[in-house]
């Protein structure tokens, strides 16, 4: 019996230890470039080996930054009193980093996980000497290269940045360097979470504004058909669903590069319907937020009560057409 008690105590002790720290999330190893330890990056760093409290604080910081940036870029809607559009922008800004970058821009890890194939410059030499020279400037040949070769990194305490696709999508907003090299890449916006979010949300707004302002032109968002006299179909306006608007902006502007593809999400035959279903799942998670964010492959984050309350107000407002903002104002004012 004493043995049983001792065993139980040991189990309890182990239980508490595992709550304080975690194993490395190896799924993330292949999604990262390793950043030069000599380069400073700005913004919260996700540490998968840390305890739950640290992770929760990380996510709380990140959500606070997202809300502030979205508020800044949606300010005209807010000041004009179009609160539905305002909360739609905030909800969109909360969803896209989850869809795109797992709510991670930078990862801090204590392990030898620098990926030589990703960080090496040798692969470049397949291209011409000229273009190699031109583009090398961004990540490799600067005095302090952002991505040094792994053998030049003399520490196992690494900071990494998330990458995706074939390696050309970078950061929490998965900005494609193929398409955004003149600004995001050249001006090194990836070195800061805030600047990355500024860029990403601004790219979303380039879709949100023109689509929302011409909403009647989008069959999937604002138009319905109803039978009129003699069986004639008449065009009628249906009430705008702001969550559909968010889905449309992501499907068109953000994922397709064109607002002409806004209604892709409503097309059952779209070759990209799985992309849109994935986005819908993440949007639904955001809309159903009850204090804990569940991020695929990463885990659950319990947000601090003040930020959680602001989050709930935003998603409640976008779904109910309300304007409850006491907690949101408090978060934005800090």
């Amino acid at each position, binding site marked *: 019996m004493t043995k049983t008690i001792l065993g139980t105590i040991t189990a309890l002790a182990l239980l508490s230890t595992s*709550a304080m720290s975690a194993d490395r999330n190896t799924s993330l190893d292949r999604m990262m470039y390793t950043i030069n330890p000599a380069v400073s990056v700005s913004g919260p760093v996700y540490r998968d080996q840390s305890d739950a409290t640290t*992770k929760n604080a990380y996510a709380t910081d990140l959500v606070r930054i997202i809300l502030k940036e979205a508020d800044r870029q949606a300010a005209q809607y807010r000041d004009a009193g179009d609160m539905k559009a305002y909360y739609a922008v905030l909800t969109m800004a909360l969803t896209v980093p989850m869809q795109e970058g797992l709510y991670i821009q930078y990862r801090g890890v204590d392990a030898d996980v620098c990926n030589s194939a990703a960080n090496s410059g040798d692969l*470049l030499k397949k291209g011409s000497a000229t273009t190699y020279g031109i583009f090398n400037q961004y990540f490799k040949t600067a005095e302090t290269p952002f991505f040094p070769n792994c053998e030049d990194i003399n520490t196992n305490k690494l900071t990494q940045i998330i990458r995706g696709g*074939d390696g050309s999508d970078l950061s929490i907003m998965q900005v494609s360097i*193929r*398409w955004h090299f003149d600004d995001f890449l050249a001006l090194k916006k990836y070195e800061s979470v805030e600047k990355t979010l500024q860029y990403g949300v601004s790219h979303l707004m380039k879709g949100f504004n023109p689509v929302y302002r011409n909403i009647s032109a989008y069959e999937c968002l604002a138009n319905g058909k109803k039978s009129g006299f003699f069986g004639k179909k008449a065009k009628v306006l249906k009430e705008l669903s702001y969550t559909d608007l968010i889905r449309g902006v992501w499907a068109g502007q953000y994922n397709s590069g064109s607002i002409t593809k806004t209604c892709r999400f409503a097309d059952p035959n779209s070759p990209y319907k799985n992309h849109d279903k994935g986005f819908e*799942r993440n949007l639904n998670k955001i809309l159903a937020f009850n204090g804990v964010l569940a991020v695929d492959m990463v885990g659950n984050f319990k947000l601090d009560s003040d930020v959680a309350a602001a989050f709930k107000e935003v998603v409640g407002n976008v779904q109910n057409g309300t304007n409850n903002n006491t907690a949101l104002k408090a978060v934005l004012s800090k």
Partner: protein
Amino acid sequence: MKKVLLPLLIVIVVAGAWWNFSPRSSFTAPEVTSEVTPAPTPMKSPEEIVAADYEKIAKHLSARNTSGDEWKQINNYSLTPEALVTNANAKTYFKTAQSNVPDIFSCLKKDFCGMETRGEDDAYFDDQKTPAHILLNRNLKIMKESLKKDGSLKSEVDWDLMKELATSGSDMLSVEALDIIREFDSESMKTDELIKMTQDLQGQAKADALLRLSKKSNSTDKILLASEIEEIFAQKDGNTVISVLEKLRNMSLGANASRILFHLCRFKENEDKQNWPTIKFLASKVNNEFEKNCN
């Protein structure tokens, strides 16, 4: 013993409940919906990917223009054209940029200079802002900066090409080419002709073009601009209307601006009435009586 066991049992039950309901520090989610996926093998570096896209454009350009430091600087987007072009090097940069423009424009029209999506699963293709658009636009900006630094270069500009670019249907190129014509060919191109060249532009591009045309315009030009904006307010789509309205105050149209606002009252009840709060808000900054005048 029983006395010891009971509190322990309680502790175990509480700990079990905590473990079940507290956020887990790490787990493997069964379903992945996010855009981030493990990178393929062999991986490509970002430079390799961008370089491959760029190689397709560079092969359309003269070899002389794509070698050496000048080409490197043209492609160094962290350097603004203002910082890049000096009085001393204006002629050289002008010559190279002007020679690149028709070559890039030609391959852009043909097949976006070979730009493609990265595969079947990649939906992204911005046909208004491919790498070739960006490079062409950069060359236009460098040309403009060279012209500012050395006025004698005006006679060397291919104005027909500029006009073609201005009406090319590409937002960013149209706005930039129009700006070059406005600033350096105003003797032969009058404001009404320039306004005509913006006919096919919409939204932000239309607003950007009109804002640029409003610079340095005289009072007659301002009347022409106001007349164009009046037509936009009366007839065009919500996005173009709001984009222009956002920039109206910066166009310094004076009393003309206030006069044309009443056309916006149509948004109070039309099918894009979601725009009414924004229109009301922006128009009231120009004329605080705006809303009252719509009643």
